[in-house]
């Protein structure tokens, strides 16, 4: 039995959100900025994400990679994830669980902390 490709649907919605956000770019100046950075003076792991999304909405991939390389990289992988999900959904295969390997978890931690360090060091 085929299932709903939630990941693909979510990706389409995310793409739509990025496109809409580019139309709302003039309002971005009204955002007060990162509270964590204001308090500590250091960027947080999500600093640069809004500017990255706005750049993606304009089709400016170079800018997107500058503001948040991890988010831009994930956006680049989104079509692959959509195809993977559609294929599995068509075959009726359930979503696999998250890997139990300790190394996979450590890699995810490294990605999160590495992103944070990268953004903090660059002063994004």
């Amino acid at each position: 039995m085929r299932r709903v490709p939630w990941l693909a649907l979510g990706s389409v919605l995310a793409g739509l959100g990025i496109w809409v956000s580019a139309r709302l770019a003039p309002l971005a100046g009204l955002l007060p900025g990162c509270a964590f950075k204001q308090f500590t003076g250091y960027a947080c792991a999500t600093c640069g994400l809004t500017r990255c999304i706005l750049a993606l909405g304009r089709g400016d991939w170079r800018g997107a990679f500058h503001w948040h390389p991890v988010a831009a990289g994930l956006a680049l992988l989104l079509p692959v994830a959509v195809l993977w999900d559609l294929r599995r959904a068509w075959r009726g295969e359930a979503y696999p669980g998250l890997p139990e390997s300790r190394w996979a978890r450590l890699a995810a931690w490294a990605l999160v902390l590495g992103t944070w360090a990268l953004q903090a060091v660059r002063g994004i």
Partner: protein
Amino acid sequence: MLIPFLDSWRALTHPREAFQDLPPPLGVALGRMVAVWIPLALGNALLTCWRALQGYEALRKGGLPLDLLATAGVDPTVVEDLLKTLPPALPLTRLLPWLLVLVPLGVLGTWLHHAVWDHTGLWLLGGLKAKRGFRTSLLAEAEALRHAALGTLVGLLSFLPLLGGLLSIPLLLLDGYLWLFRGFALAARHDCEPWRGLAATVIHAMLLGCCALGLLTCLVILLRVGA
């Protein structure tokens, strides 16, 4: 449930024992959450909009402390002229149909959002060893958020004049506790130690919240103290 919210009160005051019974089916848990939370969220959204519209009207009618602006070097006449050009506020009745659509979507979106991030947080902490999948996280979140809706009810006190301002800090602390409370449900349903569930909600806040939660906190403080 003879007394409304009695079971939620018990769950919130004894979170470790709250999720020891056999879990209900996901549909039942979701139905209960929606039945309790959507009416409260709708009431909260209506009051928030009503207050925001009142604040806007007060602004249009010159509600700004012009003397204070003058001392800050701003020409009060320029500000007054600018305020006069603002269009009148929409009547609340025109916003109501939008709220009837957006509030249920917001409730369901919040539930899904919490489930995705808390599940990821629990995985990062090695709390998914019992091999219960994402569906279990969805169930745990639905159960926890049904009880946490009591916080939305208490949060309505913030709309009371004077008392609302005084309660802003205690209500923020309550919001913090209700955020962590989901961790007890996650831990119980995934059969892991409570600290992993609690820490998963903290990681969720850290991953997403550095920026977004800071902004949200500022907005909540402004809404509760303002107008």
